[in-house]
């Protein structure tokens, strides 16, 4: 679960969003919408603190509390790398790491220093990718199709057993068939996880989301 209380954030001296309150529950897909540049991706990145590695002028006020089986509390009180293992993030474009398919999936386990028999296979099966890549595990991941690469990105998150997954326009660069597969996957995963989906596609939101939050322009955006 994620609970956001009086959340305001932005860059430099400019607010993007002010006083946002919301609760995101396990078993639901919540879509985040709003015009381009309003701060949808920034909102997702403020949950797993990914903005900290991208921009140094980000600021946040208010609270973002998460509750999973392993973590509880405000995200600012949790070590970023620990937090990100529990809060998976799927980028807008598929970004395979420059290594094999298998190593892409095991990367998160390797950095966490843990091993689990069959974990890579389980994650690829859960991401509906195993049948397509079981004979290509040693191949460079960049040789997969875009749709396969995005499902590989989901497998990378699933191997961490993240209970929260943030999808940042995950189908914007995919064809209709791959989009359908990712949507089915999101719906399937939402039974066990908390899912946030940033999307401009209202039809997609209608197909998969249980709830919608529309981010709006702030009336006074100077700090």
């Amino acid at each position, binding site marked *: 679960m994620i609970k956001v209380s009086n959340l305001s954030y932005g860059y430099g001296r400019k607010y993007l969003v002010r006083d946002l309150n919301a609760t995101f529950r396990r078993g639901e897909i919540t879509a985040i919408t709003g015009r381009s540049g309003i701060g949808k991706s920034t909102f997702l990145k403020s949950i797993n603190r*990914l903005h900290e590695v991208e921009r140094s002028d980000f600021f946040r006020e208010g609270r973002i509390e998460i509750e999973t089986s392993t973590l509880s509390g405000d995200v600012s009180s949790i070590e970023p*790398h620990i937090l990100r293992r529990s809060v998976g993030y799927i980028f807008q474009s598929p970004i395979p790491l*420059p290594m094999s398919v298998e190593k892409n999936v095991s*990367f998160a386990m390797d950095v966490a220093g843990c091993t689990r028999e069959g974990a890579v296979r389980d994650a690829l099966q859960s991401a509906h990718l195993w049948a397509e890549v079981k004979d290509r595990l040693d191949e460079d991941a960049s040789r997969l199709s875009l749709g396969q690469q995005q499902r590989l990105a989901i497998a990378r*998150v699933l191997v961490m057993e993240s209970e929260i997954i943030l999808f940042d326009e995950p189908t914007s660069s995919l064809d209709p068939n791959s989009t359908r597969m990712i949507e089915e996957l999101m719906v399937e995963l939402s039974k066990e996880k908390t899912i946030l989906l940033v999307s401009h596609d209202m039809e997609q939101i209608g197909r998969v989301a249980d709830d919608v939050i529309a981010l709006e322009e702030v009336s006074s955006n100077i700090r």
Partner: protein
Amino acid sequence: MSGDRLLLHISRVVVVAITAIYLSILFHIIIKGIDAIVSLGVSDITPAIWGSLTLVLLSVTMAIPLGVSSAIYMELYGSPKIVEIFDISFEILASIPSIVIGLFGFATLIALHRYIPSFRASLLLASISLCILVLPYIVKATRLGFSETPSDHKAVAYSLGATKEDVLFRIMLPSARGQIKKGIFLAIARSAEDTAVIMLTGAVASYGFVDGLLSPFEALPFYIYYTSAVYSDPGELLSIYEAALILICLSAIFIRLSSGISRGGAK
């Protein structure tokens, strides 16, 4: 004739001319060098070969960890102000003539000699001075390699729970490997050929085989420099070509070895 075609012809002529000059120099050295090896043997310059080998190995071995570590600090940990100061410092260091670095080594020698009378011009001092000379090549090459690492890859690694150290060792260093290798090649070539630094810090014309870090040593570039200034017969002149050919071969071997090490490290 259009401007494009004229430019094409000019650039083609320039490339051919430069290549021809380089090849003729190389060919000249190879012919003369082989002639010298056949007629003189290599026994006279064997101590200089060992001296050069040891010198390059020591200076580059010192410079690699220092240079890569400096680049890592600047990339991951330094504040923008500190990084700017470091950048300017390495730019200045890269542009200092090698004779000034040699002079710095010589001044250090004089200062230390006051307190430690047994400290003298030596292989160690020359290696440290050469290390300072080639350090900027490795720092700049590593920094360039890091800057070419796709930011997307770093962001994905962080999103998967990687720490700065994980991103460094699993994403940035493998990605920067090619540039670091180029920096090492440059450092090897520079430390193998430099004369100005070693003539002030430890190289001598005649000492024999290297027998310790704190002893003087012979080296091929210094042998070439010294013999060309004082030669008294055609045989001595010919031995300069011999030393030059062996110096070229040594540089090529070092570059080949470091390339192999880089590839092995990558696996």
